[in-house]
């Protein structure tokens, strides 16, 4: 395993044991992977997006495969923040899992309530503000695409919690660097880049969109070049750390993101194709660093 190699990275004041995290919406609440490996080994897990009340989500079909990727319009189905804190978090805490609570709301006030609620709990390492979900009518992209709106959410949450605040960026923001800067000024500790980008698939047999929601968020390997470019842009723009996400499936992918300026990465869609993907990426990164006699920190932003 990772003997003699230091994989620790600092996301602001938070030190992660390694830079491999799992992406919100691809890892349930962390307990579903129990059969495969000990998720406490990972740098962290981002929960399914939590809302104040439980949500049923969108009607089917919610997913379809596309070229080297997939579209999803899950609609943020989740158990709600209360059930998470009551039923899931104590188990994660007991196991020593680094938990990043991903939260979603349609108003600034509700974001604040969520941040306050999560702030009361032991065992949450950071809060990730989902201001960039493309699959809900209200509160998703309209926050993430607008620098002032994203900053308003960030500042309001900053005022009620001392937990690290990560803001999840939308690739659909016309000026993503402006959004990142605004979030930084509003007190964000890190930026997660990127959320999915809206796509469409049509069934030529039925002439219908393949998803009931019509559009869905594109994820998977198809997204990787775009994600890397945005991470690179943001890393040259803001002072706070970037967590890279978008098509990360292997250790090599993780290394690319670190070199482009990310401090850590999130593995998403790859978890579906292979439930061991995050663990394999972690072990592969340890091998990569060991072979080169370097630590994970040494890779950050070193693209030539």
């Amino acid at each position, binding site marked *: 395993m990772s003997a003699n190699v230091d994989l620790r990275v600092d996301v602001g004041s938070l030190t992660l044991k390694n830079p491999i995290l799992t992406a919100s*919406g*691809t*890892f*349930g609440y962390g307990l*579903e*992977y129990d*059969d*495969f490996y000990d998720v406490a080994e990972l740098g962290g897990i981002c929960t*399914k997006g939590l809302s104040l009340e439980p949500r*049923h*989500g969108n*009607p*089917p*079909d*919610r*997913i*379809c*495969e596309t*070229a*080297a*990727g*997939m579209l*999803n319009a*899950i609609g943020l*189905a989740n158990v709600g923040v209360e059930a998470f804190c009551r039923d899931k978090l104590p188990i994660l805490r007991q196991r020593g899992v680094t938990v990043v609570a991903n939260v979603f709301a349609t108003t600034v006030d509700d974001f604040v309530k969520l941040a306050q609620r999560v702030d009361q709990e032991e065992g949450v390492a950071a809060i990730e503000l989902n201001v960039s979900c493309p699959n809900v009518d209200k509160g998703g992209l309209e926050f993430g695409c607008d620098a002032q709106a994203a900053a308003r959410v960030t500042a309001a949450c900053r005022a009620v919690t001392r937990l690290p605040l990560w803001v999840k960026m939308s690739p659909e923001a016309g000026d993503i660097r402006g959004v990142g800067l605004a979030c930084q000024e509003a007190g964000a500790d890190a930026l997660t880049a990127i959320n999915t980008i809206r796509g469409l698939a049509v*069934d030529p*047999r*039925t*002439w*219908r*969109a*393949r*998803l*009931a929601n019509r559009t869905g968020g594109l994820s*998977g*390997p198809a997204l990787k070049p775009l994600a890397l470019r945005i991470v690179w842009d943001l890393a040259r723009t803001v002072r706070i750390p970037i967590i890279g996400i978008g098509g990360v499936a292997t250790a090599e992918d993780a290394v690319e993101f670190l070199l482009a300026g990310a401090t850590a990465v999130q593995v998403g*869609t790859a*978890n*579906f*194709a*292979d*439930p*061991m993907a995050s663990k394999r990426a972690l072990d592969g990164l340890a091998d990569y660093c060991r072979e080169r006699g370097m630590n994970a920190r040494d890779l950050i932003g070193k693209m030539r």
Partner: protein
Amino acid sequence: MIEAQTRRRLYTFPLHRRDSIGSAYHVLTFEANEPIAALPGQFAMVRSTTWGDAPLLPRPMSLLTGGTRPSILIKVVGEGTMRMAYASSGEQFELLAPLGRPWSPLPEGHRAVFVAGGVGVAPLVFLAQALGEARAGGEMPLALYGGRTHADLPLDAELAAVTELRVATEDGSRGTHGRVTVLLEKALDELSGRAIKVYTCGPDPMMAAVARICAERHVACEVSLETPMACGYGVCLGCPVPRRPAGYLYACTEGPCIDAALIDWERGHGVSAGQKARGAS
């Protein structure tokens, strides 16, 4: 009955053999170096290690058998199944298994009636064989098997070996001319007054019709759901099925085998369910 394996695992097995049934159907049998303790009705997420990034996701497939020779029945409908249909012996496959809820046991004193549509026959063959092993003499299950044409009845011989088989085709090329639900109504008339449990797997419109007929006659009915899935174990939330009275249940963890009465068939099953092709001439 074998004990259920509670722990799902990701196995890598070589393909032992591929048997073609006509042009559209294939049975893939894998060579397992350790047995998969799967129960009838459970499924596997199946992916060839040759796929790389495309096809990206594993395909959910009902298991036809478990043990040391796990097998699946596939119908070629898209890129994943097309690649499977050309797979050669020795090709390495990843199977995440066993997944989902199996068929529930046949209650004491009940006659099992199977309603299968096309490729939906696989989990019912598995169940029929298990019931046959458990049955000391007594009645065979009654199997009603429907397809568009005679070519859409793969595994009919396997079913005939362990059930009393009746067949229907929509074009009349074999058995009763019409839909399999015609056979079901006739069978339920014949078995009137008997304790019956219906197990069904096939296209959504067929299962919805079977569920409706069973509900009208107060006959217990269990369905095996089929929906797109990305993960197969409850994290992607991509396989919702409308639940009565509201909300959704997830086919991968609360199904695929589930009481038909829990499903809201009126709210439909996805954008493609029962949709007629447009612009076809």
